[in-house]
């Protein structure tokens, strides 16, 4: 028996690191897990939404009389019932459950019908008469900048600019002027959507005590709970939100949805349960997916390949509402300096409203776009300087516990190990440039945060909390507001509690994602759950363990800190013969102390940056990934085949390697889909059909995603160097592994056929166009050709740590004394 251990020092684990059936695996495999649309209640009614056919219009009148009179209809709702706006972010409360005066995209909900069944509700939708007056529309950020009027919203920076910001960490122009080379590149990343297999569904009801219960497919029951109280104008204590197990989320179920308010209101008005399930087409309108982003990188390097400075400009197509936009805007740059040493960094970003479904957070939230540009540009730098792209990256990875120019603390990093590992696995050195014509290898890296350092609404309370309850029967029940999306958060919770108490995870019952029962966790976003929920769980388990150890020590005739918990038993460290069952230990503790329960909570450490805006980007830890993609490009069709992908992910520690590996491969899959085919694209109908700006492909057939036949084999290496800020050292794995895939693919295509595709998705027509240019002796590149004049504000100027800064904003002229 080992001496009592702190989690990180623990040498031998019972549960952690062992491949295991996930705690919810059985229910899923037998079809017994109940998703939101599987729920049924007596007297339940069904709801359907009427959506705008126009991209931008004033609602002049709505006549619901005929719909109301339709047989089987119980209620028709319009924007008149929803005077209070909402929005996931406090600074963007710009949505109404049903549009009141204006619609802003094709698909904006304007009315709702509640009826005996879906069929009847659908019939009644057709009977609602809405008179619209159409307004000029904005199809792109460029159009939005050029046309400040009419404004899509009457708030924001100016005209149709929602957010506009600028940060400069050290004098970037000075550093660029002194650089041996300055690379200037433009990139474009098309928008795409989450496409979770489960369509959003919600069931609202009024419980026996008169309180509202909303069971919904949501990633963030806590934020939804807050917004419901606001919109419905009833105390939060009278509302209970249950996050049903989600059939995938990927960020798409983070924002509160119109339908959630509508069925809640309807249930309260009718006193009957009301259910809605969005159609697949409606899921494309709900969207909140990847922002299309145009990017300009100006990067200085020395002749031996050291970065000197980077000036990054981004322009985001926000769609019709704010959503997470203020955060998304930051994320198109804040994580850029985390991977490689970058002495100075300037970052300007602008988000423009357009008349399309709102963009928001999708897996990697704002980071895949700049990472694509950064990593493709690095490939160009390596090519120009005659350096091996893997060696170039390896030579400049950020150091552990270092600060970036922007004052992010890097913490632990396994990036160098990741690069070495994928180089080895892929046979990079032996195979690169030796695969023959049309075949190539490309490498790229990335990093992602393990939870945002700051909550979406300002507060100093815990980000995650866990309550643990034990009783004499040996039952261990753990309560936490965290939400299961399929990523395995319940399994993480059970495994951390089980390991800490030395019991089988099967002993642990998880009760999660229920605002009426579970302590608050902010939600399943920003790769925060393992770290934040896990640390809260560790604290709760530690407190319970102390009680059990104190009680058991008396019986085992040892000291409490010599009590060891393992294999469903409790031992004295010095003599494994002195032992009792875990259940006996719980009973002793209950006898000695009364009911055994404990809470634990977690808030991230205070970030080192102190300038305004320094709250976006800091994280308790960062994960790192490196990826090599192999390609075969058909020169006649431009068709890109990917035979294999190798990826190494610095996960700190894999709590359940089956799930960790699944997250990595799933991330690679989604990244490859974005790289090759996924796009949320729009077109204008001809004038005789109203010129509306419509979604090009709102179906699973037309929105292309990789099938089982398209997906290559992925070889995964998990780099495990436990991070001291993370529970048992475990960092995130849900989002990071997606990020290096797109640039690695683009770099592999260059390696294969010598053309640069500086935008995603990289479709065969673009490859073919670039090959034709190459044939004609033109620059063999397809990508954006210009960056519009964006009225970025004067930057917030902050000196990097190594230039005498203190993390605060300084006046620019102060710096000359220091440099």
């Amino acid at each position: 028996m080992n001496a009592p251990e702190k989690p990180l020092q623990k040498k031998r684990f019972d549960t952690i690191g062992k491949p295991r059936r996930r705690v919810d695996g059985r229910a899923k495999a037998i079809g017994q897990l109940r998703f939101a649309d599987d729920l049924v209640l007596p007297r339940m009614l069904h709801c359907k939404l009427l959506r705008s056919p126009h991209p931008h219009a004033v609602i002049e009148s709505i006549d619901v009389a005929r719909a109301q009179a339709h047989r089987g209809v119980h209620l028709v709702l319009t924007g008149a019932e929803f005077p209070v706006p909402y929005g996931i972010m406090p600074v963007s409360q710009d949505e109404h459950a049903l549009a009141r005066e204006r619609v802003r995209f094709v698909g904006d909900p304007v009315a709702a019908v509640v009826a005996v069944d879906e069929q009847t509700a659908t019939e009644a939708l057709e009977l609602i008469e809405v008179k619209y007056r159409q307004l000029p529309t904005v199809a792109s950020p460029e159009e939005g900048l050029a046309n400040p009027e009419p404004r899509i919203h009457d708030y924001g920076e100016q005209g149709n600019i929602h957010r506009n910001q600028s940060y400069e960490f050290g004098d970037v122009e000075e550093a660029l002027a002194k650089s041996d080379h300055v690379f200037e590149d433009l990139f474009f990343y098309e928008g795409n959507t989450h496409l979770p297999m489960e369509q959003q569904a919600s069931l609202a009801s009024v419980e026996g005590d008169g309180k509202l219960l909303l069971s919904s497919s949501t990633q963030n029951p806590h934020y939804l709970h807050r917004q419901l109280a606001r919109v419905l104008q009833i105390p939060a204590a009278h509302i209970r939100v249950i996050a049903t197990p989600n059939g995938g989320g990927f960020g798409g179920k983070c924002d509160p949805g119109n339908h959630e308010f509508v069925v809640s209101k309807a249930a309260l008005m009718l006193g009957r349960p009301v259910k809605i399930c969005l159609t697949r087409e409606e899921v494309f309108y709900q969207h909140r997916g990847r922002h299309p982003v145009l990017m300009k990188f100006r990067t200085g390097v020395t002749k031996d390949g050291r970065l000197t400075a980077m000036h990054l400009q981004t322009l985001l197509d926000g769609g019709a509402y704010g959503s997470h936009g203020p955060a998304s805007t930051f994320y198109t740059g804040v994580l850029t300096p985390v991977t490689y040493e970058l002495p100075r960094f300037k970052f300007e970003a602008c988000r423009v409203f357009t008349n399309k479904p709102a963009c928001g957070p999708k897996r990697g939230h704002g980071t895949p776009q700049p990472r694509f540009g950064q990593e493709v540009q690095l490939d160009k730098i390596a090519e120009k300087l005659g350096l091996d792209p893997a060696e170039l990256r390896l030579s400049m990875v950020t150091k552990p516990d270092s600060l970036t120019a922007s004052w992010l603390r890097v913490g632990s990093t396994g990036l160098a190990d990741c690069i070495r590992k994928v180089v080895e696995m892929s046979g990079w050195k032996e195979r690169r440039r030796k695969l023959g014509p049309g075949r190539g290898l490309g490498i790229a890296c990335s990093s992602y945060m393990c939870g945002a350092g700051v909550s979406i609404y300002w507060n100093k309370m815990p980000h995650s909390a866990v309550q643990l309850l034990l009783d004499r029967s040996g039952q261990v029940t753990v309560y936490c507001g965290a939400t299961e999306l399929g990523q395995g958060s319940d399994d993480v919770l059970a495994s951390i509690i089980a390991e800490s108490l030395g019991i089988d995870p099967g002993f642990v019952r998880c009760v999660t994602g229920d605002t009426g029962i579970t302590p608050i966790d902010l939600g399943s976003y920003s790769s925060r759950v393992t770290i934040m929920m896990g640390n809260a769980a560790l604290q709760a388990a530690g407190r319970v363990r102390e009680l059990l150890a104190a009680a058991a020590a008396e019986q085992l005739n040892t000291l409490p800190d010599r009590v060891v918990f393992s294999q469903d038993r409790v031992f004295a460290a010095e003599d494994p013969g002195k032992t009792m069952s875990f259940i006996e230990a719980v009973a002793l503790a209950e006898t000695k102390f009364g009911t055994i329960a404990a809470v634990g909570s977690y808030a991230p450490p205070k970030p080192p940056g102190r300038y305004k805006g320094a709250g976006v980007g800091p994280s308790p830890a960062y994960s790192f990934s490196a990826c090599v993609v192999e390609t075969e490009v058909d020169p006649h069709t431009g068709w890109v085949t990917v035979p294999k992908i190798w990826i190494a992910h610095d996960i700190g520690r894999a709590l359940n390697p089956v799930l960790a590996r699944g997250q990595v491969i799933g991330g690679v899959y989604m990244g490859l889909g974005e790289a090759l085919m996924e796009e949320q694209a729009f077109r204008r109908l001809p004038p005789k059909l109203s010129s509306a700006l419509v979604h090009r492909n709102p179906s699973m057939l037309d929105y292309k995603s990789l099938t089982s036949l398209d997906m290559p084999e992925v070889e995964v290496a998990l780099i495990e160097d436990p991070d001291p800020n993370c529970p048992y050292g475990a960092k995130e794995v849900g989002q990071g592994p997606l990020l290096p895939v797109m640039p690695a693919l683009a770099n592999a295509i260059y390696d294969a056929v010598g053309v640069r595709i500086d935008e995603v998705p990289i479709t065969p027509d673009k490859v073919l166009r670039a090959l034709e240019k190459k044939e004609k002796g033109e620059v063999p590149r397809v990508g954006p050709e210009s960056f519009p004049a964006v009225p970025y504000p004067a930057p917030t100027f902050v000196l990097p740590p190594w230039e005498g800064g203190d993390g605060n904003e300084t006046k620019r002229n102060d710096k000359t004394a220091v440099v």
Partner: protein
Amino acid sequence: MSAVPDRVHMTLRVNGEELPVSFAPYKTLLEVLREDLNLTGTKHGCELGECGACAVLVDGEPLLSCLELAVQCEGREIQTIEGLAKGTELHPLQAAFADVGGSQCGYCTSGMVMTAKALLDSEPAPSRERIREALSGNLCRCTGYQQIWESVEEAARVLRDGKR
């Protein structure tokens, strides 16, 4: 238009049981399974035949239940995910999906497992390529498919060897 349309009454044979049921005649097999027989293990992702989440077996063949009218299924042998386990003992496909990562969010799992069952019923030792092909009509957004292929291979091995 009638708000409460006429209903048809028939007996469907589901998972070996004769189940009398009455429903509106326009309803798909998917809707009747989920809404009238409370067999919600079968999922829907598009209701347009694009995603495979609603696959069930009809007379042993995988069929998209969202595209089939329930009235056309009288007298046919319908198998859903609920009928696969023997009591509480999981079918080897179900056990493998739970154990080796074939199921993440679980929403595509029923359709995947039923489609894979049809494959293994006719080909006990399919190649990786055959598995990929057989499942190519079933979309999954979580797994990247690899652990699904591995689950099917593991189940095939268990079914052949008779042990886990």
